[in-house]
């Protein structure tokens, strides 16, 4: 089971209303750039406990899920 880690996100809101997360700040204030977003869909996070819009992101060569739920962002932490 993993933790639900809320993160602050730097995102781009385009003129069509699309939201693209660019980077996020981890608990220890480290900032991680999102290299690529490979998928966006609605999904539930069984690991962290929540449901919303799931961005599949590549960060430092790894795939992570970044969730947007009720205007709050979270990731599945270890």
């Amino acid at each position, binding site marked *: *089971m993993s933790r639900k880690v809320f993160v602050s996100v730097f995102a781009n809101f385009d003129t069509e209303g699309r939201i693209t997360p660019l980077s996020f700040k981890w608990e220890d204030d480290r900032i991680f750039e999102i290299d690529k977003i490979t998928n966006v*869909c*609605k*999904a*539930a*996070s*069984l*690991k*962290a*406990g*929540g*449901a919303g819009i799931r961005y599949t992101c590549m960060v430092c060569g790894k795939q992570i899920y970044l969730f947007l739920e*009720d205007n709050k962002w979270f990731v599945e932490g270890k």
Partner: protein
Amino acid sequence: MERVILHSDLNNFYASVECLYKPELRDRPVAVGGDVEARHGIILAKNYHAKKYGIITGEALWQARQKCKDLIVLPPDYKKYLKFSKLARDIYADYTDRVESFGLDENWLDITGSVHLFGDGKKVADEIRERIKFELSITASVGVSFNKIFAKLGSDIKKPDATTVITRENFKEVVWNLPVNELLYVGRSTHKKLRGYGIKTIGDLANTPVKYLEYWLGKWGYMLWTFANGYDTSPVSNIAAKSFIKSIGNSTTAPRDLVSNDDVKITVYVLSESVAARLRLNGFKCNTVQIYVRDNGLESFERQGELEMPTSNSDVIAKKALDLFEKNYNWDKPIRSMGVRACNLVLTGDTQMSFLPEYIKEQKEDALERAVDDIRRRFGHYSIGRGLMLCDSRLSNLNPKDDHVIFPISYL
């Protein structure tokens, strides 16, 4: 053209939502229960681990704890459930605009017009189940049939996370062997009556001459007979159409038993204010007031009475309700729950005009009540109230209009 109707039932809805947010509880027996302090201490929902212990919805928390001492009882969070209910409806809306809610966790979908786009009933049902599971982590059971009644029955047959198809060809095998109380609107007392006449299964009901049923049960007899035979043709209402409201009511289980007419008066006024405010909000007036009373032995009854003229005035509704109460209750036992309902509704614009002084008085009172509505909208429900409410703040500390947002709309 044969209709294709789905009934989707979200399994263990409240408990499933709670377990999503609390992953550490997922493998333990969990129930969602009302507030014991406010005497709403019953099981509202439970997960499958709790079900194994034989815990049933509606039983008291202490009874449930006797069956399973490690039961984890969580308080309900209606905001969260409303959100998930809406998310599920958003999924349904991708397939059809004809979605009719029956409570928070059940919906009928008429996909007759979209089968050429998305495939047949079973395919759509399976796809919807998969999406609900993936997007909301909740399992659903879906019934597929040619009418609403069998679709609902179908969703009850196989749980959780399953699709059941009932067709004109197989309904006699699938439906007719089920006990008659599985049928929608066969409640406790109808079941008892039917059992008395030897009707045990839905098939028995379907094969009973309809004249007998009408004789025993009145117009309900005919309705149940059409249900059992698959003749139900009631439509699934349109998602965009405002649901057609036939009555507006509120009820409450009081924080303590009501023991006197004064207690009842406070409760009735609280409920009537909520009912009247909701009538005005929806542009209705009512011709009939109905009360519901349940004593602490859990015996209950309903009584109704006509008003002289249509109203949306809380004082008139409350006075009628109290009048009905006083004529029909002799205080054998203290009262546990009460309800007030406005029925026989007319649109506000359609009422008969008159020069009579009663009418002018009514207009003035209406303006007064609307002013109160406005004050409450701006400054909160408790910013203004009747003096009566101060007599017992425990009883009057209730805002049925905003606290209770779930109104499963009656089928008839």
